[in-house]
């Protein structure tokens, strides 16, 4: 009997235990409404329309060097000082006690400049006076002139002491100044002269000049950029190894792509009045599978020589060289079809490959450029067979299953496709790099090849609806999942044979997407 009472009490208590109130609701959320087209690329001449088809107009300047890139004058300080060897008493007011010239060498490695003009830059002057009367500093830079007027700086510096000399600093712009670096005899290079004149204050007292007093000036040439240079520009080769990644190409993880015959040219233009050697040592790409492919052509490997430009300021005519790559002289098509995301180029550019043959008469002007331009026009037609683009996104969504949460979801994609590409979509949900759930779309995003011509715009289009159902199991594991991989396999399938064939992209092609998310939610207030 006691047992029965206990059982009844336990039963009553258990029946009082409240489970959560819950019910299910259905929602539809608008996500994406977008049209993906190639129209944005027309403006920068990436794509051009030709006879109703699209061509890739790949004209890109891959190298553009100017005078500032070729000849750089480092920040340089020149200084000149005076110190008497003995004590001079009774130095009268207005007495000129220094008048000295000094030549300075600019360290420019193997570059030997005779004349330059400064586009912009400045000089920072610093003078010191240890004498107990004011001193008139006169600093001349004989080779530095503006409109044929030499650079002269005068300043009266207040009296100072040996322990605390009076100091003055001043910054002066050198824009437009010409500098003759050929020295006093006009036969040298990289030479800069300065002349220092010191005079006591005409209205000051009579003073004594001691042998431990040092009068000094410093001139710092700072951030000097040239717009003209003449001399010998050296022969130091610029050896470069450049790497760059093509967007989206690294997302291709499978399948193949066949492209129509194509041609590419590289134009090298030398706007400097100096001889030039250029060499493309190697051009290699590596795709997402790690397969590398090198471009081979007669012009890859050997050195090519460009003559100096001719003319002067207004009549400058660069010398040019045109390299052509096509199916006859290169493996360009295979190179592109390797779908290499990682591009490596090794090249050398060397001025004056035969040394100072111009006898120091290399010249560069403000508008002198060394340019390398790539030009290719490729019909945008392709043959894709399961060409798979795959991208991984971090997944950082958590939900508490004891509170209101999403049970299941369905991604609904309504698409209008004017591209001749069909696509199969798959989502992989990952935890710690391992695939936990694979979700496959219920249908293929159909190719325009299966559609009909729309009389409003004359485009071949196909509408399709693709649904991707995310089952409850995905949401149960959602807190543990950390990445989602979106995989899209593209094919240019022939509607009749079912085989991948060459398909041209029609001008104005687009993919209109309308994505909605249908949610089944468990409400637990």
């Amino acid at each position: 009997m006691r047992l029965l009472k206990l059982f009844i009490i336990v039963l009553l208590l258990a029946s009082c235990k409240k489970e959560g109130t819950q019910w299910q609701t259905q929602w539809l959320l608008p996500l994406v409404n977008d049209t993906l087209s190639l129209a944005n690329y027309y403006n920068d001449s990436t794509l051009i329309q030709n006879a109703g088809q699209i061509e890739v107009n790949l004209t890109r300047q891959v190298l553009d060097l100017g005078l500032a890139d070729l000849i750089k004058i480092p920040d340089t300080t020149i200084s000149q000082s005076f110190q008497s060897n003995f004590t001079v008493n009774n130095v009268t007011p207005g007495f000129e006690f220094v008048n000295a010239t000094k030549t300075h060498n600019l360290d420019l490695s193997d570059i030997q400049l005779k004349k330059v003009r400064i586009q912009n830059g400045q000089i920072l002057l610093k003078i010191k006076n240890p004498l107990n009367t004011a001193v008139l500093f006169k600093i001349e830079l004989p080779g530095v002139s503006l409109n044929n007027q030499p650079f002269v700086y005068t300043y009266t510096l207040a009296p100072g002491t040996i322990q605390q000399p009076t100091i003055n600093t001043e910054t002066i712009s050198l824009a437009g100044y010409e500098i003759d670096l050929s020295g006093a005899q006009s036969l040298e290079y990289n030479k800069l002269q300065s002349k220092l004149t010191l005079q006591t204050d005409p209205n000051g007292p009579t003073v004594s000049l001691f042998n431990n007093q040092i009068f000094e000036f410093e001139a710092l040439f700072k951030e000097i950029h040239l717009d003209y240079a003449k001399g010998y520009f050296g022969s130091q080769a610029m050896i470069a190894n450049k790497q760059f990644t093509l967007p989206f190409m690294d997302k291709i993880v499978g399948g193949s792509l066949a492209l129509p015959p194509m041609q590419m040219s590289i134009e090298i233009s030398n706007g400097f009045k100096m001889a030039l050697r250029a060499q493309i040592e190697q051009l290699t790409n590596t795709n997402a599978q790690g397969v590398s492919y090198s471009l081979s052509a007669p012009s890859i490997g050997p050195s090519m020589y460009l003559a100096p430009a001719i003319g002067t300021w207004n009549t400058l005519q660069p010398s040019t060289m045109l390299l052509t790559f096509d199916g006859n002289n290169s493996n360009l098509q295979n190179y592109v079809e390797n779908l290499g995301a990682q591009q490596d180029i090794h090249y050398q550019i060397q001025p004056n490959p035969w040394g100072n043959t111009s006898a120091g008469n290399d010249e560069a002007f403000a508008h002198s450029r060394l340019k390398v331009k790539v030009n290719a026009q490729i019909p945008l037609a392709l043959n894709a067979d399961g060409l798979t683009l795959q991208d991984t996104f971090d997944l950082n969504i958590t939900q508490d299953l004891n509170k209101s949460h999403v049970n299941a979801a369905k991604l609904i994609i309504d698409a209008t496709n004017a591209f001749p590409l069909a696509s199969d979509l798959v989502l992989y949900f990952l935890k710690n790099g391992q695939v936990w759930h694979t979700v496959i779309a219920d249908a293929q995003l159909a190719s325009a090849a299966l559609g009909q011509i729309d009389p409003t715009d004359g485009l071949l289009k196909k509408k399709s609806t693709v649904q991707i159902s995310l089952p409850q199991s995905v949401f149960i594991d959602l807190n543990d999942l950390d990445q989602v991989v979106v995989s899209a396999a593209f094919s240019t399938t022939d509607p009749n044979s079912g085989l991948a064939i060459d398909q041209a992209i029609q001008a104005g092609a687009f993919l209109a997407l309308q994505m909605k998310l249908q949610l089944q939610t468990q409400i637990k207030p």
Partner: protein
Amino acid sequence: MYRIFFIFLFVGNVLLGQQSIDLQLMGHYNSTGIVRQIPDAFFYGGTIDSAAIDKSYESLKQRNNFGLLMGGYVIWKSPWKLPLAKDKLLAEYQWTFSIGAQQYTGLHFSKDAFGLLFKGGLPYLGDTLQLNPLLLESTSFSKVGIGLSNPSTASSILLNFVQVQNHFAARLNQATWFQDDQTAQISLDLDGTSNLGSPSLGFGLALDIDYRFGTDTEEVDEQEFQLLVQNLGAAYIPSHQSYALNGTMQLSAMPISWWQNKKLDELGQQILDSLGFEKKVQSSWILMPASILLAKRINEEPIKKIQAYYGAQMLLRQSYTPFVYAGAHIKAKQFWQTGVGLAYGGFGGLRAQAYSILKFNNKQLILRSDNITLHNGASLLIQFRCEF
């Protein structure tokens, strides 16, 4: 609360003299359209299936009510009289003490709001949903009272000190929801406010008045009426959260580039900004959910075996409609009287009510339900009275 109740019982038993204790516990919930399975799931837990939701939805009108009223109190009419001379007006009055607690929740809602909440937006693609009027009022409080009662008429008046434990009031003046069936774009137009009181911070005063009146004849079968006013007062809530929405929001599909640069929490804030969401802390006075009942009292010593009873009750809340009832009272046995009748209003529509009164010497037990049949809810009132 329970300890105080037992102390009252104990004290009532040991004191000598004319005194009584009334204990009442009651709980009602009802709706004009929602089937009972839905509120039951909220009270007892469980899954609300789509059949119950569909059934409720079909029976709802454009405007509907749901409400919950529960509570209990103890009144001790003490033997102590006022220290006045016998010829004074209040000389016969006894000191009376009470303690009680009550929960009131009332909801006035539209059929569309119910559908959106319990079904979601998907079934209503292409339809414009009118979510207003939506009014939710919820107040829970406890009270301790002191007053006077007349032992000969049973009239009484008590002044209660009230502590509000919870107060929530929300109102949507204007709210429409439209979702385009092609683009799934959601258009939401909202104008509403809500106040959420902090717990245990509201204090106030309220009056309970029980006034009995009737014919002055000395007939045994005289008609007696009761005017019962409870919780007539106000409380001050010094600090509570106040929210306001007044704006229009469009939730539409966006370009892919927009999603690439957007975070979900930013989207939530953007929606709130679009709806003109404002939040502030403020103080306010609230009126207590006062109840006013005017009823014919049952003659517990009737000459006739059957007598009529009727009454009407109002509650000082917008979500509560006037409640009227009427029925027949039957004296089945000397210790058992019962009654059946019909009730209408409050939170629900027409339904049947019934009660029984059991009397044993100076003790009386009343069991009553206002939801016997025709109901969308449940109701139970237990009243125990002991005179000694």
